[in-house]
């Protein structure tokens, strides 16, 4: 159903709230007529704000929204041929189902007999025939969601906006509705713009996915593109499961990461800092002597279709998905086919490392504690009076053993001669003068490379400690 005609164009869309929070910045997107586009990202990434600007509930600070080439940036919501399905359905509690669905048609002064026909038709579409006289309160969550969809669709909008519409449903219901929504989209030919934080939902339903983080588009592409060719470490980590390593190119089509040298297919200049991504299902476990790198199996979890095996190689950790089991404590080799290694230039040189929440509910790396609170690490979480940790949706969680992906910028790491003061220590392996500072590669005792910017000159092979201020770190839950 997709045509080449752009139905909506977002140009340099920026939203800064009154409190100074930059929710969306320089957002550019063109959506084709009939497309199913999903905004995907963690909470607070700006996806809902972008949707609200398209709907007209929020006005952009800068930028333009074009609908069929016409500027609608400042048009109020009731003048836009766009309808929204709200996260919590937002059905009118003082009206029955018929009146709820008829609301939009009545605004357009549609004749009663036409309204009756259209309501009946759209109720058929969402599989709730004969629900006209029911009141909202008597419906289950799934039924209310269907009514919300019907109420939007009955107006025959040019674009249907869906704001995490399945978020409040249970898993089985959600799967069912995903398929039905996709089917509806195919049948009706209406453009869908869908917001979700659920990567699987996005991959299943969309024609194209916009991965967002901190108000910016991280990657825009088809589900296949985004899964197979993530553009940066954020996308790689957010979509599917992945092993992410900092590394460096050591030769033509050769990259060093995770304590070994791998062949790869991405042609990047020697000496370039890279981020390497390896999907768990792409790692092959071999006898120790045949692997590119070796490691010790630390845990094996049976997952039904496969085993999830965690292997420690030095202090790097590789998660492997395999149909064959392994025994914890065994030494194994690991091999990855060159075209299964996705190498990206580490454009911002962000350092990533994995820390773990220990049994005392403290974040730990290299046997040292990171002084921060769990509510800061796990977004949306809070503590109750008795100390239980609740996640964003209010469910109690036990964070122990949870692995946290910590990122820190090169300029935020401080090098010191007093190695014991650092979070981790290592040797300077590489240094490049970058005009106003030096960029160092420090190979730590945990077999990881850190990139550090410093204005002073240190010597090659100096043994240094790396001080990392906790307030400069960002945290992300590893799935």
């Amino acid at each position: 159903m997709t045509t080449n005609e752009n139905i909506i164009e977002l140009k340099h869309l920026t939203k800064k709230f009154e409190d100074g929070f930059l929710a969306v910045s320089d957002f550019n997107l063109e959506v084709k007529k009939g497309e199913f586009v999903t905004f995907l990202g963690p909470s607070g990434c700006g996806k809902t704000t972008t949707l609200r600007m398209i709907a007209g509930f929020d006005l952009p600070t800068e930028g333009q929204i074009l609908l069929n080439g016409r500027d609608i940036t400042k048009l109020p919501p009731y003048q836009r041929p766009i309808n929204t399905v709200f996260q919590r359905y937002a059905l009118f509690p003082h009206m029955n189902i018929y009146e709820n669905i008829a609301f939009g048609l009545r605004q357009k002064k549609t004749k009663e007999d036409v309204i009756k026909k259209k309501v009946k038709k759209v109720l058929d579409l969402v599989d709730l025939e004969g629900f006209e006289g029911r009141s909202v309160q008597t419906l289950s969550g799934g039924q209310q969601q269907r009514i919300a969809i019907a109420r939007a669709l009955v107006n025959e909008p040019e674009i249907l906006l869906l704001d995490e519409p399945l978020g409040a449903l249970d898993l089985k219901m959600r799967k069912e509705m995903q398929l039905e929504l996709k089917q509806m989209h195919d049948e009706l030919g209406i453009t869908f713009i869908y917001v979700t934080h659920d990567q699987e939902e996005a991959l299943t339903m969309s024609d194209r996915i916009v991965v967002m983080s901190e108000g910016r588009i991280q990657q825009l592409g088809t589900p296949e593109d985004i899964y197979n060719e993530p553009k940066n470490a954020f996308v790689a980590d957010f979509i599917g499961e992945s092993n992410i390593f900092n590394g460096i190119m050591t030769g033509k089509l050769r990259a060093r990461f995770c304590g070994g040298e791998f062949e790869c297919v991405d042609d990047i200049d020697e000496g370039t800092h890279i981020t390497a991504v390896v999907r768990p299902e792409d790692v092959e476990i071999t006898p120790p002597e045949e692997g590119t790198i070796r490691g010790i199996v630390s845990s094996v979890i049976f997952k039904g279709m496969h085993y999830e095996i965690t292997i420690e190689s030095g202090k790097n950790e590789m998660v492997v998905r395999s149909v064959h089991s392994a025994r914890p404590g065994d030494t194994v080799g690991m091999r990855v086919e060159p075209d299964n290694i996705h190498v990206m230039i580490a454009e911002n040189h962000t350092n990533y490392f994995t820390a773990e929440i220990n049994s005392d509910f403290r974040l730990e790396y290299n046997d040292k504690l990171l002084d921060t609170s769990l509510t800061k690490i796990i977004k949306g979480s809070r503590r109750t009076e008795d100390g239980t940790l609740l996640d964003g949706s209010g469910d109690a969680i036990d964070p122990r053993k949870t692995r946290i992906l910590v990122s820190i910028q090169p300029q935020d790491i401080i090098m010191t001669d007093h190695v014991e003061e650092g979070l981790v220590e290592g040797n300077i392996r590489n240094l490049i003068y970058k005009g106003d500072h030096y960029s160092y590669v420090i190979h730590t005792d945990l077999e990881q490379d850190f990139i550090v910017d410093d204005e002073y000159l240190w010597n090659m092979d100096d043994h240094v400690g790396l001080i990392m201020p906790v307030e400069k770190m960002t945290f992300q839950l590893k799935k």
Partner: protein
Amino acid sequence: MPVFGLTRKSLRIPYVLFLAVFVVAPLFVLIYYAFTNGSGQPTMRNLTGFFTDPNTLGTLCYSFAIAFVCTLVCLLIAYPTAYILANSGFRHKSVLLMIFILPMWINFSLRITALKEILTMIEGNLAMYPFFNAVLGMTYDFLPFMILPIYNTLSKLDPSLIEAAKDLGADETQAFFRVTLPLSVPGIISGISMVFLPSMTNYVVLDMLYNSTYIMGSLIGSYFAAYNWHGGSMIALILLAIICLFTLVTESYTEEDSKGIGGAML
């Protein structure tokens, strides 16, 4: 489960006692006096007398009129106030609300006395505008009781409902009349029931404003002052019946309406 050796049963004893002494017993005394005459004989004269005496009927109508106007004025002032309060972007809404509720914390006789002084300054002779003064005094006294429940319903209103209305083609005004107003009816009704009934009987406000007109409360007062306990009890009983009727009607309406958005009562 007993706590400190008390069972559920023993915990409710003081409550039952309180009810018996201060609610049930006075009610029976009231009924007894209403249907007896001076010599203790059962009679319906008090009842028929009320509905045949043009003076009492006139007072009833006058009370209704004052209560009606007072409620209407309260509603007209309170709704926009509550609406603005609930929708203000001001971070500390509760502070704004407090400013409107603050008069409730000052002793009511002090407030009315102050009002009397101001009115005397403006009008000279207070007896010139009895109806106006009665409505003004009661509005001043009861306004917070109208603002609070309306504010409560409005502030609990899910903003996405208004957004949904606009999304479906309603402009600001249409969204207000089709969604906000109908959904705030429970608040309006509890506001009305908290203003209308007291303003029919609260004659203390009138007395303090040197108001010589009679409302139901003053009528009862005058019967008792003249030692006609039987007539006074009957009027009190009739008022009680009116209040019961009113509450039944409004309650059934609010219950039906508040299912979706929670109770509006404080």
